[in-house]
């Protein structure tokens, strides 16, 4: 079979989509990588390193490396700020792309006064990574030599890697996210640590002295109908807490939790380290109020006697979970692939979890269900292999 003629579209340019695209391209397939945002990398390109005096294997820097692979691979044609508008055919498929409306910020507008003036804007304007910088012209538009304009593309197979959305804490109003300045999400914390290089309180930019993490925000929640564990938030919260504590040994950290999920094979030693340097309280706080000096008064049931107690933290981090993507219902309909009970794309075959209900369409990463970065990479490799099998070339 002539491998040169095979072409695959990967929808979604997070770690899963990038990994699938790269593996396919390495195997000789032409890839159209379609990303809705103005940068590649999805959520995980925005995370901070969580090393103490040791790497904690969070995987964040691996996303940088995969992005470097992708931009160096000529068989991958990158469409940014683009999304699928219509799909026709039954393998081959004709996919019509349209502009998503996202545009990069002009670097001079965002960053003209230097990084330190507005780190968040500077980082966002360059897509969070040096490797994304190749896609932009200095005046803010896309470089047409690196970014293809939306068009109609004929492909032999499609990989859906559209990822997830972090839980929106507005759906749990008692946490008063957005109302209390020093209540932030895990994603806010990751971004801030990445762009500022350290933890800071949003209210005054100061280093917190007493911090709390609240686990399972939006996940494992019967009332919301979210009957799944997000799998990534115990690992990210604990690693982030441990790294922060390592940098600031005087910092007091409390973790409110239901159950702590495993990280890697070294979980036992890792968790022991965590337990020695922070307090674990097996209860989920009820609500929060702002104190006059910006503290977060947090009410919870004491573990020992079940009576309500209050404690004031100067920074509370909500460990938001992995929710099905906003586009899932529309995409499922357009592509003719169903959604599972939780709203992620259905993966009907346990023995090949990259398959959807339709031939020629595959799923990779958190589009199919909660998983970590390493899981997303394994899932994407599996999808790439399944695509190659489908193309009958392997």
């Amino acid at each position, binding site marked *: 079979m002539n491998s040169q003629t095979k072409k695959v579209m990967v929808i979604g340019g997070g770690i899963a989509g990038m990994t699938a695209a790269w593996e396919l391209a*390495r*195997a000789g397939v032409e890839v159209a990588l379609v990303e809705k945002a103005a940068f590649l990398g999805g959520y995980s390109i925005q*995370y*901070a*390193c969580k*090393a103490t*005096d040791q*790497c*904690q*294997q969070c*995987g*964040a*820097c*691996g*996303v*940088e*490396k995969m992005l*470097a692979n992708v931009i160096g691979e000529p068989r991958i044609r990158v469409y940014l700020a683009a999304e699928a508008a219509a799909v026709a055919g039954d393998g081959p498929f004709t996919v019509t792309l349209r502009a998503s409306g996202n545009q990069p910020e002009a670097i001079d507008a965002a*960053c003209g006064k230097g*990084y330190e003036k507005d*780190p968040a804007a*500077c980082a966002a304007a*360059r897509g969070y*990574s040096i490797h994304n*910088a190749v896609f932009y012209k200095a005046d803010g538009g896309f470089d047409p030599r690196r970014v293809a304009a939306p068009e109609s593309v004929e492909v032999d197979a499609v990989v859906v890697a559209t990822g997830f959305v972090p839980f929106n804490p507005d759906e749990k109003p008692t946490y008063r996210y957005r109302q209390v300045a020093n209540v932030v999400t895990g994603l806010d914390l990751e971004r801030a640590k*990445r762009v*500022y*290089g350290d933890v800071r309180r949003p209210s005054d930019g100061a280093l917190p002295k007493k911090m709390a993490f609240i686990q399972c925000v939006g996940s*494992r929640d019967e009332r919301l109908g979210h*009957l*799944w*564990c997000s*799998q990534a938030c*115990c690992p990210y919260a604990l690693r982030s807490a441990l790294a922060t504590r390592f940098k600031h040994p005087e910092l007091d950290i409390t973790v409110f939790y239901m*159950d*702590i*999920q*495993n990280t*890697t*094979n*070294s979980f*036992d*030693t890792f*968790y022991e380290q965590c337990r020695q340097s922070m307090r674990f309280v*097996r209860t989920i706080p009820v609500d929060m109020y702002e104190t006059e000096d910006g503290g977060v008064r947090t009410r919870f049931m004491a*573990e020992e*006697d*079940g009576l309500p107690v209050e404690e004031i933290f100067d920074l509370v981090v909500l460990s938001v979970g992995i929710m099905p993507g906003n586009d899932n219902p529309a995409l499922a309909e357009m592509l003719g692939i169903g959604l599972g*009970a939780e709203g992620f794309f259905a993966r009907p*075959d*346990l*023995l090949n*979890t990259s398959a959807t209900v339709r031939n020629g369409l595959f799923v990779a990463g958190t589009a199919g269900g909660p998983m970590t970065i*390493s899981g997303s*990479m*394994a899932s994407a*490799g*599996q999808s790439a*292999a399944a695509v190659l099998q489908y193309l009958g070339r*392997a």
Partner: protein
Amino acid sequence: MTAKLETAMEQIEIATGVLVVGGGMTGVATALEVARQGYPVTLIEAGEKVGPAAESRPRTGLPDARRLQDMAARLAQTDGIEVLTATRLDAAAGVAGDFKVWLSTAEDVLERRVGAIVVATEFDTAPLYDGYGLTPGGAVIGQSELEQRLAGDPGSFSGKTVAFVAGFAQSGNPMVMQRIFHCVKALQDAGAAGVYVYVGDLKVADDGLEREYRTGRDRGAIYFKLKEAPAIAASGAQVVIGFHDPVVRQQIEVTADCLVVEESLGVGAQCADLAAILRIDIGPRGFLQSDNIYRFPVATNREGIFVAGASREVRSLPWALADARNAALQVAEVLGDGTRLVPRDKAVVDIGKCTFCLTCYRCCPHGAIYWLSENKPVISPVACQACGICASECPMDAIQIGGFTDDLIRGQIAAKLAQVNGDPAIVAFCCQNSALPAGEMAATFRMSVPAGLRTIQVPCAGKIDLQYILDAFVSGADGVLVMACHPGNCKSERGNTYASWRVEDAQRLIAGAGLEPERLRFATLAANMGTDFKAIVVDMDQKIRELGKSRLH
């Protein structure tokens, strides 16, 4: 362009056979996937059978066991797959693309030449009676026995009370929980009178588990999350379970007709031997993969050797089958069409200078160096990752790395220091996997870094020679930074460790020459942390400003 390539590259012939070690479902799936790509496979299994019979993962609740049997049956129908049961890997030699392996069967020792190896062994599993101070028998049974009884005669549990205990004798994991959830459902379907589950943490981080847990609970199963294992005592044909309930804060006793003990999910007994034979790193808890993101998902420290499923982590069968596909994908990447173009000068030994001391062979983290019978080290251009650790460790300076020869790097140091400005001259040796991109990020994002900073790219911090550091000071540096990956994040496992040792040595040397040791600093950071890069170099710049100009100038 091609002309240039031809001079720098050489074509290498690659053996396209593949050895798969382990005949559980991961091994079976790997063999089928690899064979489908047209590479001949030898699958070896230490036991008597392959397929579901050799599989150590719980099979309860899998869609249908028949499909696994069908999959295993396809082995025999697929061309190019040789299945050897009761066979072990005795020895291995060579490098990616050219391994020689010795396989001992019941009668014979066979020799095969293969280009790649996939280890796909199964868990060792046994009920943890000892861990709970219990002896099997009567009301006390293991998880597998319960599953067998439920499959054979579910009705026998009608009206019975069954308790499970898990997560105390070993740390909890989702696979154990999944097995329990499935049994809870089966017991409820069979009309059990009561189901109690005693656990530490509910490990539900895998597909569908939280829902299964909730469903079982809604149907009446009672879960207790305890800090320590409950006290369990036999009482006639029953067991009495005593514990402190953290919710109602009371001591409670429950009597059960059956107590089900969890099973261990330990690394396969052969894994330690396999690691030694294959010269691959062992990770935490004996699994055959170090904790290192460069190994995601199925790589080892050695090119051409991959690990899948239970040989590398404790996860459910769907994930192990994903590994099988990933392994096959990576195998194809190594074997290609049986030839491979590699740079001629990746790492080259000057045999004239070599004193055959074996240092390079011992220190290569990727097992890329082999020894020829005529007493000569040879570096495989396929297996070598061009980290340069051997080059810096070789006592005779007999090894040079393409693009990073000693002459090139030392020339760069001199050239970069030749341009003088008023600012403190700081030379930063930057590992290209971490510090270099972080530094580029700082620059691209317009972070303010010191004007006197001069970065020198190295393939791995392990390539930084003591001599380079001294050169930099002699050629005019006021300060030198050696910037490497965080411990545990080095692609070559130990390059950062070598670099930190060399910095300590160099600090002693410069102190002997009358320079302040603080002028030389070792720092670690990640590729995605431009802000860390900036913080390190700014801090260094301030330090050097306090110390003033180097007294060597």
